[in-house]
C-alpha cells in the first residue's frame, strides 16, 4: 500500500465528482501535503479548509479537507511554499488561522471593506483604519543600509492591471522584489454564493477577462460534474474551438507586447494586426470578440454563425503564413536576443515546487497540460504536442508561446473540419453535490470547485494558474536590472484579477 493510500485509509470520502474529497484529521492533513506533489490550491468554507492535489506522477487527483477548530487549522506553508499566499487569503476571507504558518500578514484585506472576514459564517467587525503594508525584511534595505527601495504601483504606467511591487535594489540590480496584490478584489466568491450555476457563470467569465472562455469551461465542468451531466459533443467541440482561439489571440498579443518591451516595435505592429483579425473573425463566429458568456453550464449558448468557420480559418491562415518569418526575428535580431536570452530565469525546481503550469511552467521544464492530463473532451480525440523547454528565461517563454500558437491553430482547423452534430446544451438539473472542473487557460491549468445545495452555490473556489506564477516571478527577477522588470513581467503575464478574486 502506498504512503498516500495509508494516509487516506479510514478517511471519510465525501461525494464529489469526478474526484473525491476526503476529510482528514490534522496529522493526516499535514502528512498528505508532505507525501503528495505540492497542492494546487488551498481554500476554505465556513467550517473546513480544503487543499486540491493533482499529482500526475501518481495519477491522483483529490481534495483533502480538515476541520477548522477554534478558528485554526494546521498550516501547510512550512511544508509547501506555495501554500503561503493561500493561507493569507483564507485568513482574510474566512478568518481561519494557519497554525504554524510562515506568513500571517494580510493579503486581500487592505482594511477597506465595510466588514472584515466577508466569507465567514458571521462577517467580522469593521476594519481598523488601514495601515501601510508590511514588506518582508531584506538585509541591507533597512534605514541606512546599502539597498534602496523602489515602490511601484498600484496604478501602473501602462494599460495593465493594478498591483504594488516593492523593489529592493543595489544600484540598478534588483536584490528582491515583493508583490503585494489584492487591489482588484471584487468579492467574486461572495457574489457566486446563493446563485444558480447559470447565474454564477457570469462571474466565472469575468474572473480574468483575457481567459474568459477557459475559466467558463472549468466552471461549467465543475457545475456539470456536481449535477452528474456531461455537455453534448457539439458543445464540447465548440468550447475547444473557442478556448484555442482565445489562446491564439492572447499569445499573438503577448508575443507582440513582449518583444515590444524589448524595443522591437515592428513585431508589435504585425502581431497586433493578426490579433485584431482573429478577434474580428471571432466576433463573426461567436458574436463577441472575447467570447464572453458563450460557454455556460450545460453547454454553449450559441452555435458558430454561418460563415464563422470560414472567417476564423482565413484569419488563422494569414497569421500562420507570416508566423515563420516573425519567429525568425527571435534568432536574427541581435538586440532582441540580447534582451530575451538569460533574462528573468525561473530557478530550477521552482516550477515543480509551486506546481506552475502554462507557458511559465513549461518554459521552466514542468511538462504539464490539463488538456493532456487529466484531460477533458474533446482533447482526448485530438492530437497535439505540449512544447516544453528547460531554460526558464524570457526567451524560452516566448518560444513556448510560438510553439503553442502553431499547435492551437492546427487544433482549431481540425476541430472545425469535423464539428459533431447535435444539441448545443442540455438543461442542468436542480441538484445537490460537489464538483471539480479543470481547463487549460493560456496561462495554465484553472481549477474550479463548487458545492451545490438544491441548485444554488453554497460554496466555491477558483484557482487561477497565476497563484503559482507570482512567487516564480519574484524569484525570476532577482538579480535583473530594474529596467528589465516590465519585460519579465510581460513574459509571465500573470493575472491580477484572477488571483485577487
Amino acid at each position: 500500500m502506498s504512503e498516500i493510500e495509508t494516509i487516506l485509509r479510514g478517511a471519510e470520502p465525501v461525494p464529489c465528482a469526478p474526484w473525491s474529497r476526503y476529510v482528514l484529521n490534522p496529522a493526516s492533513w499535514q502528512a498528505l501535503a508532505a507525501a503528495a506533489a505540492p497542492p494546487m490550491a488551498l481554500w476554505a468554507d465556513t467550517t473546513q479548509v480544503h487543499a486540491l492535489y493533482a499529482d500526475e506522477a501518481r495519477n491522483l487527483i483529490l481534495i483533502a479537507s480538515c476541520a477548522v477548530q477554534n478558528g485554526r487549522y494546521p498550516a501547510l506553508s512550512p511544508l509547501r511554499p506555495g501554500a503561503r499566499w493561500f493561507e493569507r487569503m483564507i485568513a482574510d476571507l474566512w478568518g481561519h488561522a494557519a497554525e504554524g504558518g510562515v506568513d500571517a500578514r494580510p493579503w486581500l484585506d487592505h482594511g477597506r471593506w465595510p466588514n472584515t472576514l466577508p466569507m465567514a459564517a458571521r462577517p467580522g467587525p469593521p476594519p481598523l483604519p488601514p495601515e501601510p503594508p508590511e514588506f518582508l525584511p531584506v538585509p541591507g534595505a533597512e534605514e541606512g543600509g546599502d539597498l534602496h527601495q523602489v515602490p511601484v504601483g498600484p496604478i501602473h504606467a501602462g494599460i495593465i492591471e493594478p498591483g504594488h511591487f516593492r523593489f529592493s535594489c543595489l544600484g540598478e540590480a534588483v536584490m528582491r522584489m515583493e508583490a503585494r496584490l489584492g487591489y482588484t478584489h471584487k468579492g467574486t466568491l461572495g457574489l457566486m454564493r446563493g446563485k444558480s450555476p447559470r447565474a454564477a457563470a457570469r462571474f466565472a467569465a469575468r474572473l480574468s477577462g483575457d481567459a474568459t472562455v477557459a475559466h467558463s469551461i472549468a466552471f461549467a465542468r465543475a457545475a456539470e460534474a456536481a449535477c452528474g451531466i456531461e455537455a453534448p459533443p457539439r458543445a464540447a467541440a465548440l468550447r475547444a474551438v473557442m478556448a484555442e482561439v482565445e489562446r491564439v489571440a492572447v499569445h499573438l498579443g503577448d508575443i507582440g507586447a513582449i518583444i515590444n518591451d524589448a524595443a522591437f516595435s515592428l513585431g508589435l505592429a504585425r502581431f497586433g494586426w493578426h490579433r485584431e483579425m482573429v478577434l474580428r473573425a471571432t466576433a463573426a463566429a461567436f458574436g463577441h470578440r472575447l467570447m464572453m458568456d458563450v460557454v455556460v453550464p450545460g453547454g454553449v449558448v450559441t452555435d458558430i454563425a454561418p460563415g464563422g468557420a470560414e472567417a476564423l480559418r482565413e484569419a488563422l491562415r494569414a497569421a500562420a503564413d507570416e508566423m515563420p518569418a516573425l519567429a525568425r526575428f527571435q534568432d536574427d535580431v541581435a538586440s532582441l536576443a540580447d534582451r530575451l536570452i538569460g533574462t528573468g530565469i525561473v530557478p530550477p525546481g521552482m516550477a515543480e515546487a509551486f506546481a506552475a503550469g502554462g507557458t511559465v511552467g513549461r518554459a521552466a521544464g514542468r511538462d504539464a497540460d490539463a488538456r493532456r492530463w487529466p484531460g477533458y473532451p474533446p482533447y482526448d480525440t485530438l492530437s497535439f504536442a505540449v512544447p516544453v523547454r528547460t531554460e526558464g528565461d524570457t526567451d524560452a517563454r516566448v518560444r513556448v508561446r510560438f510553439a503553442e500558437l502553431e499547435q492551437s491553430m492546427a487544433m482549431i482547423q481540425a476541430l472545425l473540419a469535423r464539428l459533431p452534430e447535435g444539441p448545443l446544451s442540455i438543461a442542468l438539473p436542480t441538484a445537490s453535490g460537489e464538483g471539480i472542473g479543470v481547463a487549460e487557460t493560456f496561462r495554465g491549468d484553472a481549477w474550479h470547485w463548487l458545492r451545490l445545495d438544491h441548485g444554488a452555490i453554497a460554496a466555491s473556489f477558483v484557482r487561477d494558474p497565476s497563484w503559482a506564477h507570482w512567487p516564480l516571478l519574484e524569484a525570476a527577477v532577482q538579480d535583473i536590472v530594474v529596467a528589465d522588470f516590465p519585460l519579465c513581467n510581460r513574459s509571465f503575464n500573470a493575472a491580477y484579477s484572477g488571483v485577487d478574486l
Partner: protein
Amino acid sequence: MPLRHIARAVLRGPVSEKLAAPAPATVGELAARLDAASQARLGRSLAIRHVDAGSCNGCELELHALQNIVYDLERFGLRFVASPRHADVLLVTGPVTRNLVEALRATVAAAPDPKWVVAVGDCGVDGGVFKGSYAVAGGVSAAVPVDLVIAGCPPTPAQVLLGLRALLEANAG
C-alpha cells in the same frame, strides 16, 4: 529579415481603417460641458491616462487594441501617456474596488486641470455584474466625478474610439 517586412508594408500602404464620425448629439452634449478656455488651451489633441480600478482585464485588452495599426489611435491626436501628470483624460475601467478607491482619487487628483474622466465598460458605469459586492464601490462615479461613459462589456475598440473622438470634437469646439 525586418527590412523585407518593412518594405512589404510600405508597398501595401496603410492598413488603418477610416472611422465613422461620432454622433452630433454626443458631440453637442460634451461641447456644452467644456469651457472655452480649455478648448483654446488643448486644441485637437488629448493625452490619455488609463486607470484600472479593479477591472477583470477584459476592458484593458480592447484599450490595447486601440493602439494597434488598425485603429491607430495617435492619428486622431489621441495618445496614451504614462503619468497622470501629463494627462487630459483619465480613462477608468473596472467597478472601482474598495481597495483602489484611494489610488483612483489620487491619480485623478494628480492630473492637471482641465481634465476629463471617462468611465469605460459596464463595470465603470455602475459596477456592472459586480454591483452590490462588499468589495466594490460600484462604478467610477462612486469615487470621482465622471464626464463621459462608454458602456459595453467590454466596449469594442471602435466604441471607445468613437467616445474619445466625440470628446475631441467637443473639445475643439
